[in-house]
C-alpha cells in the first residue's frame, strides 16, 4: 500500500509540474497545427515596425528610416522567395540583413530571401529585416499600416504592420 501511495505522489507531482510548465510557455507560431486545404501556403505572422516617435505631431526629419520584422512561414510543398516589400509609409523598402563581423555591424542588401517548403524564416533584430527608407510619416507605437509583400510564386500578400516601441 505505501509503495502505491508513493507512486501516486510522484506521478501527481510530475503531472502538477507539467501543468505549471505548460501555463508558463506561450504557444509557438500561429496556433493552428495544420493548414486547411485551400489556405495560402505563405503565412505572415507578428509583423511589426520600429517606432520613430513617441507621439503624433513631431517634426519628421528627412531621411528618417525604420524597419519591419515578421515571421514568414511556407506551409506549401513548393519553395518560394520574398523579392520585395511595398508600403505607403516610406519612399522605399529594401531587404537587408545585418551582418556582424568581429564587433562591426553592417547592413547588407539582399536581393531575395528563400523560404524553403515547410520552413519558416524569421525577420528579426540583428538579422534579416525590411528597411523602410525615407518615411513619409512618423511611426507611433500602436499605429498600424498596410504593406504588401511580393513573393516569387505566391505573388502579392497584403499585411498589416503594428508599430511597436521596440
Amino acid at each position, binding site marked *: 500500500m505505501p509503495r502505491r501511495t508513493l507512486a501516486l*505522489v510522484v506521478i501527481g507531482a510530475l503531472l502538477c509540474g507539467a501543468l505549471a510548465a505548460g501555463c508558463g510557455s506561450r504557444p509557438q507560431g500561429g496556433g493552428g497545427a495544420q493548414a486547411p486545404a485551400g489556405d495560402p501556403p505563405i503565412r505572415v505572422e507578428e509583423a511589426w515596425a520600429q517606432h520613430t516617435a513617441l507621439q503624433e505631431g513631431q517634426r519628421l526629419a528627412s531621411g528618417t528610416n525604420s524597419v519591419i520584422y515578421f515571421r514568414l512561414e511556407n506551409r506549401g510543398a513548393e519553395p518560394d522567395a520574398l523579392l520585395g516589400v511595398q508600403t505607403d509609409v516610406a519612399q522605399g523598402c529594401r531587404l537587408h540583413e545585418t551582418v556582424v563581423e568581429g564587433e562591426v555591424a553592417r547592413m547588407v542588401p539582399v536581393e531575395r530571401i528563400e523560404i524553403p517548403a515547410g520552413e519558416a524564416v524569421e525577420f528579426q533584430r540583428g538579422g534579416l529585416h525590411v528597411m523602410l527608407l525615407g518615411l513619409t510619416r512618423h511611426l507611433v507605437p500602436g499605429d498600424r499600416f498596410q504593406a504588401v509583400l511580393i513573393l516569387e510564386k505566391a505573388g502579392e500578400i497584403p499585411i498589416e504592420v503594428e508599430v511597436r516601441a521596440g
Partner: protein
Amino acid sequence: MKARVVIPIVLAILLTAGVGVVGLILLNQESQEFRGQVMTTLRYAPDFTLTDQNGNPYEFRARDSEATVLFFGYTYCPDVCPATMVTWREAMAGLRRYRDRVRFVYVSVDPERDTPERLKEYLALYDPGIIGLTGTPEEVAAVADAYRIYVEKTPMPDGEEGYLIGHTATSYLIDSEGFIRVKFPTGTDPSVVANDVRVLLQQSR
C-alpha cells in the same frame, strides 16, 4: 478509500510547491559574476569632450561615475542601434535601485546628421536619461579612434539618398577607475547588462 486518493494528491501538491519555491529561490539568487565578455587585458577608457543632446559641452571622464555603459551608434541606423537602445531600456528597468549609480552614454558616429536636437528626440524614444553626445566630424572621429571604434560610411544601394554606417556595435562597461571591464556584443540580453552593472557596483564598495 477516500483518504487513499486524497492523501497522495495533497502530498503531490505540497511536493510541487516545495520544488517550485526552491526553484524560484535559486532563480532569484543574484549572480556575483560578470556574464558579458570580460576584458582579459585592461584597456583604459580615454577622456574626451563632446556636445550633449541639450547643446552643452560634456566632459566625459570615466572616473566621474561609479559605472558607465558606453556605445557608439547613429540615429539613422534602423536595426542594430535601436536594438541596443531597447536592450538599455530594459537593462535600466532591471537595475532598479542601482539605476542612479550608472550612466548610459551614446556617442554618435554620424555627426553630420546627428545634431544635438536629433539626438534628444531619438534618445527620448528609449530613455531620456541616456546621455547623447555628438560634435564636429573631427571631434567625433578623434573619440572613435581613441576607443578603436571602426566607422565605415557606405552609400545607399541603388543610388538612394543618404548613407549607412557600418560600425563597431559593442557596448562597453567602464568602472570608476576608468577601465573597460566588460564588453557587450550587439544582441546581448538586457539581463546580462543589468547583472554586470550591478556586479561592478557591488565590487566598487
